[in-house]
């Protein structure tokens, strides 16, 4: 039997992948949009629905960034509501381990798992920037080097809370008057560098025991954290060679934690454009890229590398001849990607020579160098690509990110999913009620 593919639907995010200007684009905040995407994903038998989170509105040049979608709901609250309009779909949310406390987060996830009959998943993220901290009691208290320590200890603490109620703790026998088997249930005491807490947890054990744990870090520390604690890892390596490298690297870390290769799923994020012919798909993909990168957006993205105000430049003209500003203060705040360019001056030179050689404007260059769609083709070629990547161990499945809210997954659900099902590599019915069932994960003891 071939490897089975796992698929998730990412609610379109607050970056320029999401094309809000498309005539089909709906609200990013009204509940109907969340219902629509979740129900499409469930109709297509996806493993789970996924919500990202950011706890401070992004800024660039000291002003709120206004070119992309802005505004999101509270993660827990919208997922709990989605549990009412779906029956099998996993409900995964990003929750920050820096600006929350374990007792509160554990009771929210345990509650969500109860209210969804075992479909909750937690994407554990860490942040440390004082910028986001300005919205919270403790401010930006964490040093960057401590972020995985905090996350590891946070997760370990939450696990103790999830495990503090045995599955059979509640008896509720009306005749004998015994409600609890043991009057000290839920007791915990945890002391480490970040947490010093003790008492009684107040949510009895949930259907999955613990929520499914997702992790998205790409650094060595992030991969190790995932190998130690996560059930699935997001990655940004969706191509065959890069994907295989990442896949092997993550899976080889598992035995050290006494874990099997199957106990951690590797799920790269992926975008897609479908067409009736390969040529039509390529044309549509080019149109979408131009929608994603307007002239104004091109300048803003260029500023993120240059770290300078480039508002005076023409997006249809040549790249700036000055070099990036490599001082510590960064023009863009509140996004993870700004730290990815380790050597901005070298990248800028590369871009400049590419633009000159290929006669590319600023906008052309940005379109060429950023976030091209992962899968472009007919439903048949896209289904084949997805299956090849999974069968060749570049991934265990994909987190699909539609570029239009909320209907951007419809075509994929209607055309690609049936082809995967015909190949026998994707479920035609859910095999169980919980997200652990969908992902083939064991229930924690």
């Amino acid at each position, binding site marked *: 039997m071939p490897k089975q593919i796992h698929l998730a639907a990412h609610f379109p995010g607050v970056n320029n992948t999401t094309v*809000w200007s498309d005539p089909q684009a709906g609200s990013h*905040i009204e*509940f109907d949009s969340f*219902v629509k995407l979740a129900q499409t994903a469930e109709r297509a038998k996806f493993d789970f629905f996924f919500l990202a989170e*950011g*706890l*401070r*509105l992004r800024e660039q040049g000291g*002003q*709120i960034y*206004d*070119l992309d*979608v*802005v*505004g*999101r*709901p*509270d993660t*827990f*609250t*919208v997922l*709990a*509501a989605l*549990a*009412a309009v779906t029956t099998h779909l996993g409900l995964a949310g990003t929750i920050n381990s820096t600006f*929350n*406390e374990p*007792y*509160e987060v554990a*009771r*929210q996830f*345990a*509650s*969500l798992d*109860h*209210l*969804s009959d075992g479909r909750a998943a937690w994407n554990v993220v860490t942040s440390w920037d004082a910028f986001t901290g*300005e*919205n*919270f009691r403790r*401010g930006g208290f964490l040093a960057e080097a401590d972020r995985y320590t905090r996350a590891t200890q946070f997760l370990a603490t939450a696990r103790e809370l999830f495990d503090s109620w045995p599955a059979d703790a*509640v008896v*509720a026998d*009306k005749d004998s*008057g*015994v*409600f*609890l088997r*043991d*009057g000290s249930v*839920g007791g915990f005491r945890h002391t480490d560098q970040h947490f010093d*807490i*003790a*008492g*009684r947890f*107040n*949510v009895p054990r949930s259907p999955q025991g613990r929520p499914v744990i997702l992790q998205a870090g790409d650094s060595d520390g992030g991969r190790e954290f995932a190998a130690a604690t996560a059930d699935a890892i997001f990655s940004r390596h969706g191509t065959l060679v890069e994907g295989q490298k990442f896949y092997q690297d993550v899976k080889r870390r598992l035995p050290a934690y006494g874990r099997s290769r199957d106990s951690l799923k590797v799920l790269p994020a992926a975008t897609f454009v479908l067409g009736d012919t390969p040529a039509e798909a390529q044309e549509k993909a080019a149109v979408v890229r131009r929608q994603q990168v307007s*002239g*104004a*957006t091109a300048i803003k993205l260029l500023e993120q590398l240059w770290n300078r105000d480039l508002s005076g430049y023409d997006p249809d003209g040549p790249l700036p001849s000055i070099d990036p500003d490599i001082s510590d203060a960064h023009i863009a705040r509140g996004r993870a990607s700004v730290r990815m360019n380790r050597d901005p001056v070298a990248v800028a030179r590369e871009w400049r020579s590419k633009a000159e050689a290929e006669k590319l404007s600023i906008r052309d260059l940005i379109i060429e160098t950023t976030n091209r769609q992962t899968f472009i083709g007919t439903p048949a070629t896209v289904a084949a690509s997805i299956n090849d990547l999974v069968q060749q161990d570049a991934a265990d499945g994909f987190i699909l990110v539609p570029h239009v809210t909320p209907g951007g997954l419809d075509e994929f659900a209607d055309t690609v999913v049936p082809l995967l099902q015909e190949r026998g590599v994707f479920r035609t019915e859910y095999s169980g009620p919980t997200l652990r069932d969908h992902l083939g994960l064991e229930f924690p003891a």
Partner: protein
Amino acid sequence: MPDPLHLAVALERTGWHPASWRLPAARPSELLTARYWTDLVREAEAGTLDFVTIEDALGLQTDRPDGPDERTDHVRGRLDAVLIASRVAPLTSRIGLVPTATVTHTEPFHISKAIATLDYVSRGRAGWRVQVSGRAHEAGHFGRRTLPVLDPGSLNSSEAVSAIQDLFAEATDYVEVVRRLWDSWEDDAEIRDAATGRFIDRDKLHYISFDGKYFSVKGPSITPRPPQGQPLVTALAHAPIPYAFAAGSADLAYVTPGDADHARKIVAEIPIPHVFADLVVFLADTEQEARDAKDRLDTLDRTVYTSDAAIFTGTPAQLADLLLDWQAAGLTGFRLRPARLPDDLVAITRGLVPELRRRGAFRSSYEASTLRGLLGLSRPANRFLEGARVA
């Protein structure tokens, strides 16, 4: 004909009497399911009640004032109330949903967006019961501060008064921050202007820049202004410090008078649009049956049940008499705490409500689609708008 009164029901466990879980109609093994809460809220909605509240706390239930107990004969364990409300929202359409959320150990930024999101998923039916936690054992779950053990017998000691003042001062700042965050987006901030490529008009988003003794919050919210603008803020109050808090921060207060005169005095201290009295209710076809019902539960529990609120035992018609009598003292409504679920809830929706309707004192159908609307409150102007009231 009297002014119509407003009715809410406080949902808690299998009812407010601690032995109620042992009754034949109780569903104690379903307390952690969505179906349980959905059934109750739908019953309340069938009775055209204004709203339900859902109890919560950041600790395990206990019968001791000073910390957790080890009892095995009472309901223990619960779900997060905001998430219960949200789970029920898509399955109901008119009734207000008012979960309890604690301010003492939580982040105003998180609660603000949670209640705003509840308002989105319910299309304008969200409220919030603000809860202050003075419980030392709950503080221990967070490990960020220690609180003195506040014994109900010595709440007038200077140490206790000072601690309580501090907790309510923090709550006052907290509600202020939540309210500013709700207003931190103007209603028309999302412009989707294709010509300039701008999704929002950032001049219509506002930093709230709150800087207080307990926390600082910069803003704006990550969630746009909710459908009601300002979801309903409510608080339970038993004494002068919380009365002052409710008067300054809430749209609606729940109070616990012992009789109509007492109610009149309390109402004078809380000059806000709505003051509801809380009442624990045991309802039956005859007064004697209602008393017997309470006695049987007290016997089962080997304790005579008492409450911070007055306890009513009687028929729906007698309860209607009492509510109208107390209403004349200035109360605008009542939050009824069913002693037994679902029995006393059903007696409210199918007994009390028709009785009040016959007397012209309660709606026969929902007249508004938002919770504020049901309570006769307009959608407030944004405090950050030019010319609006500055908070």
